[in-house]
């Protein structure tokens, strides 16, 4: 094992451990917080970083064993691009279901888009037409 390989391997191991840490923190947040909106913070991002570290470890390890690989970047990019949208949708769900503290009025417009329900009076909507 050359020195570079060894360093890469150590780095991979380190990345793994860091990643594990973030992942655990993410799920702790998911469990610990007592409000849907606060719960949303931890795993969507901390967890994402954690997986990012694992992907990094995978790349480092690949270089270490002599089969260079960079396609993990693609997954990382994908996760980073989609995570905000996922979080946004989940937040919208909580707002729509009134599961969280009611948000303040927007500054410029009438209301938030999620609360702008097309069903005139939701209370009257009879279940199962």
């Amino acid at each position, binding site marked *: 094992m050359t020195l570079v390989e060894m360093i890469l391997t150590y780095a991979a191991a380190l990345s793994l451990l860091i990643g594990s840490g973030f992942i655990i923190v993410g799920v702790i947040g998911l469990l610990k917080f007592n409000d849907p909106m606060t719960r949303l913070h931890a795993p969507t991002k901390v967890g994402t970083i954690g997986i990012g570290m694992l992907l990094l470890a995978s790349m480092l390890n690949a270089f270490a064993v002599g089969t260079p690989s960079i396609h993990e970047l693609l997954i990382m990019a994908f996760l980073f*691009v989609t995570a905000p949208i996922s979080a946004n949708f989940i937040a919208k769900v909580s*707002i729509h279901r009134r599961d969280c503290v009611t948000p303040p009025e927007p500054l410029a417009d009438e209301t938030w888009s999620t609360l702008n329900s097309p069903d005139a009076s939701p209370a009257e*909507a009879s279940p199962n037409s």
Partner: protein
Amino acid sequence: MSLFFIVALPFLGALLPGLMNAAGRAACAGVTFTVSLAAFIGLFTNLPTILQGGVVTARVDWLPELGLNFTLMLDGLGFFFAFLILGIGLLIITYGRHYLSRDDNMGEFFTYLLLFQGAMVGIVLSDNILLLLVFWELTSLSSFLLIGYWKHLPAGRQGARMALTVTGMGGLAMIGGMLILGQIVGSYDLSVILQNRDLIQADPLYLPALILILLGCFTKSAQFPFHFWLPHAMAAPTPVSAYLHSATMVKAGIFLMARMWPVLSGTPEWFVIVTTAGLITMVLGAVIGLFKHDLKALLAFSTVSHLGLITMLLGTGTAFGAFAAVFHILNHATFKAALFMSAGIVDHETHTRDIPSLGGLRTLMPITFTIVTIAALSMAGIPFLNGFLSKEMMLEEATKTVLFNSPWLVPGLATLGSVFSAAYCFRLIGHTFLGPVRDDYPSKPHDPNPGMWLPPAILAVLVVVIGVAPFLVEPFVKLVTGAVQGDVTEVTSKHIKIWHGWVPALYMSIIAVVGGLVLVALFKPLLRIWDALPRPEAKTIFEALIKAVVSLSRGFIHGLHNGAFTRYAMIGVVAIVAVGYHAWVTGTVGAQTRTLQPAGPVPIAGWAMLVAATAALVVMHRNRFLALILIGIVGLMVSVGFVYFSAPDLAMTQFTVEVVTIILLLLALNFLPNRTPIESTVLRRVRDGSVAIVGGLASFALAYHYLLRDAVSTPISEFHLANSYKGGGGTNVVNVILVDFRGFDTYGEIIVLGIAALLIYALTETLLNGPVRRRLLNRVPDQPRAGDMHPMMMVVLTRVIMPIVLIVGFYIFLRGHNEPGGGFIAGLIVSIAVVMQYMASGFSWASARLRYPYHGVIGAGVLIAGFTGIGSWFVAKPFLTSDFTYVRIPPFNEFELATAALFDLGVFLAVVGAVMLSLESFSRLARRADSEESDHPMDIDPSRDDTDTPKVSS
């Protein structure tokens, strides 16, 4: 004429009256008469052979392996019956032509009649007992049609069904009996069977066979206790009653007893069963007959009685008994047919058959009166008429018969029967024709035209001729008797004589006549007693029985098949587990041949996740949305498990399918209730849970068993691993199996998927074109909807992500042959890409701008796969034979060109088409009346502020 023609003529001729209905009544009757006459003449062409003691045969193989062949035989007995059937048939046809009214469908009537005639001739000419069965059942069927001929009469329908049920039952029993007989002898040919008396009677199966065959005979010939159907068959038009239910069909049972007489009779069993049944029937029929007010009912019971008489004679098993039986068959046919036709005439003219409403017809209908008197007196046993002769012979035989060790039983009962028999004959004459002329007949009676009275008149003449000059028919009767007896015994040397001297039989005859007169004289008080007597009404009992059987059947069938899938599934699961368990416990468990692999913490955690998710799903399945998430997790865990156990292709497929399934279920859940209510009782849940646990244990045990043992021989996949690259050109063995080794499976698989999509599309179309459409348009969502249908961020992301997903799909497709992936997964990925577009900007916006004809995509996919397969034919290789080569075009790397890729392209297209067509169909259901087509990809777009387009809110 060949026997085939004699049998076939009525059947072939049966087509004619039905077809000639339009040609008029006379034509129908005429053609029927001609056909019967032709058969009759044909029969007579064989008479010389018969008279010489010969037997005419004809044979064509039909089902030789089964022993069922078209074997016909004409001997004296057969000739005798055929003569009766065709001869009386001619008279009945003549009579019927005049009897039926203008409203009746004459073509139909004569068609049925000829069918019956053919079947009846078939019975008496069969030399094969299976063939005989065929004709036997055919007479039941044609009788069913004839009794029910007047469709509007409930009595007709009921009578028809009753007759069919009873005779059908007998016929089925007889099938059993005949098959046993055939098995004993080793042949179903009568001529062979009749040679094997000793073999048959020594066989332990003789008694079952005898009982089964006699069941057939007794039901057909209305012997006690199966006599009750015959009177109800009288709902048929009178020609039918005269023909089937007195002269011919009911004699089929008698015929068969006579036919089988050489091999079945002569045993104590035969004697006791047949004689007893005959005796009881004779007495019972006569007693009941006396008190019947309906002319036809009276005659029907008299028929029952006389059939009993003949049966009794056959039962004695003596030569003289057989002789008397044959003679009485002839005599009964003449006088009873005459009586029926006359009764029909009375009915026809007076519009009633009710004896109390009649009387005094003597002067109004002199011809009919004469015929009835001759025939009835013959039946009563008055000398110089043929009935007297055979009745005397019967009484003589009775005096010699010892039943149940009593020499008095048979003669006593025979005399009693004769008394009643004479009584109803006298009542028939007296109460119908004698007495004062009345003025309240429903219709003014007079003698009918000769077409109606001539046939019975001819029979009446025969009654007298035979009665006066029995020596004219004696040789013939002896010839027939000889045929009945076969070579068992010699034909009796006795002669038919009018005067025997003062023998016991004569005293009995005198008692009968005198007793009969006394009974008629005392009729009114006797009737009062009779009416006061409680007696079981056979019809009521039968109907109640049938009704009970039907409601029992209904209760059973509808109770069992109550539309409850849950029960069906439960029974199915229990049956499967039970049968599997049985197989398990009756087998032997071999030694374990594989070592257990250790499980680390990660597999254990994965297992725990899977179990937890599954358990949670069971516990929380009522929240359907949550259930979907949980099932997603189960799928995810299974996928990860597949990765762990070296199956990346499977993991990918599993997970992709999982997501698409969840999308489908979400689309459906939009319409369905979001919660499953609690409906089942705790007990039920416990029961279901127990069954489930048992099923789970079974699958666990089975899986564990196999996992610990190797296959009995090297798995065939060794070949696949060895030849995947060499022969299939791919390193991903799973993919090579899918597109090459077992490409035919995959071909079927994409077809399944294509069909699924077509089905979903077709059903959507049907729903949207049916009553459901209105419901859908007026549907109110079951939960309030959030604003912002097409969120901006999602739309923007999709613009970037969707092309990336497409390129990934393309990559997966290309790499599939050598790395995990392939056409199927690629197809799903591309579908997902399009679904993302739909989720972002909505189906209507996306499809309004770009819409693929998904039907065509499916069709193209399946066709491409198919034509790839066929392509190999052009290089003289079997369907789906693959080929591949490597190509290099700078600047690209060397790449592989394989027919398998073309096949995979077909897979890809079929998958894309199928998934998209299904999703599209689901989403079409959701389009509401209030939804507008949106013009924009996203609802909120501040960059539109400048152009100031109106906002679309929902």
